[in-house]
């Protein structure tokens, strides 16, 4: 186990900057998720930590040692790849013991470590099989087994669940999380799926365009996003945004006036973006009118697409209410959960 520190880490391909100077501290045993849309540089950053990509500038430090110029094999890391990268011509056991074999481990020691990892991951009956004889979930487990068998300082996961179906993804998500809780190895996990990030991380790093938008605990990011990008990226269904102006009467959006908390009035007459999460609408006779466009009953909740003034927004209601498209309901945005962002730049105002 080890701390990982990135100091002003940069990556360029020729004149094109991919990573623009990232600072990040990961404490010993922490589970950090790098999340962001495609092309934001999260996988590149992970590969730089792994040593699979060169570092243009800055410093990567693993366990108190600057590793910029070290080969991946000398960094004491293990990596799980998106497509598992299992060696197709080797059995599960050989795949798992391969790195130990090349680090001079004795046969008995390798067999013992492989057995230990196989027991943890439920792979014991599959040790003699080849990767082609395994299901997606089993392959994923073997890839994890290959990583843990060496007891590295840091685990690196590069979108390991994206090739699995939705149901298996949820199962494997739980397995990775419980594996981390058991081994307590420092982990850096890359995903574009914000649900994975929310459910697994001790700390989330939201990346966009090669820059860090926000670093924090999952609920901190959810409750107090630093800017409009993070607010829109974290949470599913995503936050609703209405553009308009802060006035003394409330927030003036196209075709509607929305209530604002007292504290917002210090930004009076400022153009802003009004953000509210779908679950923070309440049905209330004294609320603002909303015309229902689409109703999607999910069982545990009902997702409603509705028109607030001229803007389409999504609301999620836990109550079993009878709603039908075309009808007008009255909803009240919860004042404590309203987010205001600057119209220019998207920084948080409240």
């Amino acid at each position, binding site marked *: 186990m080890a701390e990982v520190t990135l100091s002003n880490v940069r990556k360029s391909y020729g004149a094109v900057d991919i990573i623009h100077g990232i600072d990040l501290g990961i404490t010993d045993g922490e589970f950090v998720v790098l999340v962001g849309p495609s092309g934001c540089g999260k996988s590149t950053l992970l590969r730089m930590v792994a*040593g699979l990509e060169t570092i243009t500038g800055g410093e990567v430090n693993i366990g108190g040692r600057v590793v910029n110029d070290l080969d991946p*094999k000398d960094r004491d890391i293990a990596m799980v*790849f998106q497509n598992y*990268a299992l060696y197709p011509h080797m059995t599960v056991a050989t795949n798992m013991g391969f*790195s130990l074999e090349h680090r001079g481990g004795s046969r008995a020691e390798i067999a013992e470590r492989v057995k230990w990892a196989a027991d943890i991951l439920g792979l014991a009956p599959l040790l003699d099989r080849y990767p082609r004889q395994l299901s997606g979930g089993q392959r994923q487990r073997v890839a994890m087994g*290959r990583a843990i068998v060496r007891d590295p300082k840091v685990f690196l996961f590069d979108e390991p669940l994206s090739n699995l179906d939705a149901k298996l993804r949820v199962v494997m998500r739980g397995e990775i999380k419980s594996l981390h809780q058991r081994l307590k190895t420092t982990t850096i996990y890359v995903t574009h799926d914000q649900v994975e990030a929310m459910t697994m991380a001790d700390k989330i790093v939201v990346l966009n365009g090669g820059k860090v938008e926000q670093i924090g605990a999952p609920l901190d990011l959810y409750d107090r996003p630093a800017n409009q990008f993070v607010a829109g990226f974290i949470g599913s269904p995503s936050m609703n945004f209405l553009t308009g102006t802060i006035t003394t009467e409330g927030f003036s959006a196209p075709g509607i006036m929305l209530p604002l908390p007292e504290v917002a009035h210090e930004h009076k007459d400022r153009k802003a973006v009004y953000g509210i999460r779908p679950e923070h609408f309440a049905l209330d006779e004294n609320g603002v009118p909303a015309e229902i466009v689409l109703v999607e009953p999910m069982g545990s909740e009902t997702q409603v697409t509705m028109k607030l003034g001229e803007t389409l927004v999504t609301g999620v209601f836990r109550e079993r209410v009878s709603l039908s498209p075309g009808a007008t309901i009255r909803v009240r945005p919860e004042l404590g959960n309203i987010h205001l962002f600057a119209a220019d730049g998207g920084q948080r105002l409240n």
Partner: protein
Amino acid sequence: MKAELSPRRQVFLYGLLCVLLIPFVFPTWWMVTSSVKPISDIFAFPPQLMPESYDWTTYAKVFELQPFVKQYWNSAYIAALVTIGTMIVSSMAGYAFARIKFPFANTIFMVVLLGLLIPSEVTIVPLFQMFLKAGMVNTHWPLILVPIFGAPSVFATFVMRQFFIALPAELEEAARVDGLGRFKIFRKIALPLARPALASVAIFTFLHSWNLYLEPIVFLSSADKFTLPQALTQYTDAYGGPMWNIQLAAATLTALPVLLVFIIAQKQFVEGLAHTGLKG
């Protein structure tokens, strides 16, 4: 889902295939049957599809008139060395072109590929002069070295490069994380996975070397150094006319190992064709 063919259509298709088979099967059939015919029957009209009498002494004469066993051995060991050498050179060169980033890699590869465009007839004279100076004429070295570092190896390098390009980069990256250096990645990961491509390279190289004709007649002059294709031309009578039945018996014996290899490795052969993108 495959559509079921009606019986009538099936009969028609099989009949058509049988007709199309004739130009492919007939020469082999003619070679094998004529090898046991008396020479006068070979040109009899109408042609005899089955020999009326069998003359097996032609096979004995193949070995009496030429050092055929020695020539067989020459062809076999040259083809084996060329095949092994080409597999080694082409797999390493193919891997380097596919996986190692070095300046002008693609340009150099193009230059290498240009070697395929030069007909062997064009280079045979300079090669002869080169090997003459090196004292290697009338030895088997030119027949071994030219294919290993010449056009057949270029073609094999192309096949191997295309295979290695398609190999997922993550496998190599996983191996790097697992602690392997470049050469070990090649030997332990890339090469074992390249078996289908290597098999096709082996089959094509072996066939090419086994059938090589121009180079042996240029470089070799003594009968005990001859390879089989060259030896076949040596079965002539006192007037220089071909002894057809003995020649065809020798040809049958020459084709036999290739036929056997083809029958045994039919699957790999077809896969090999698919790999190279050739139609044979």
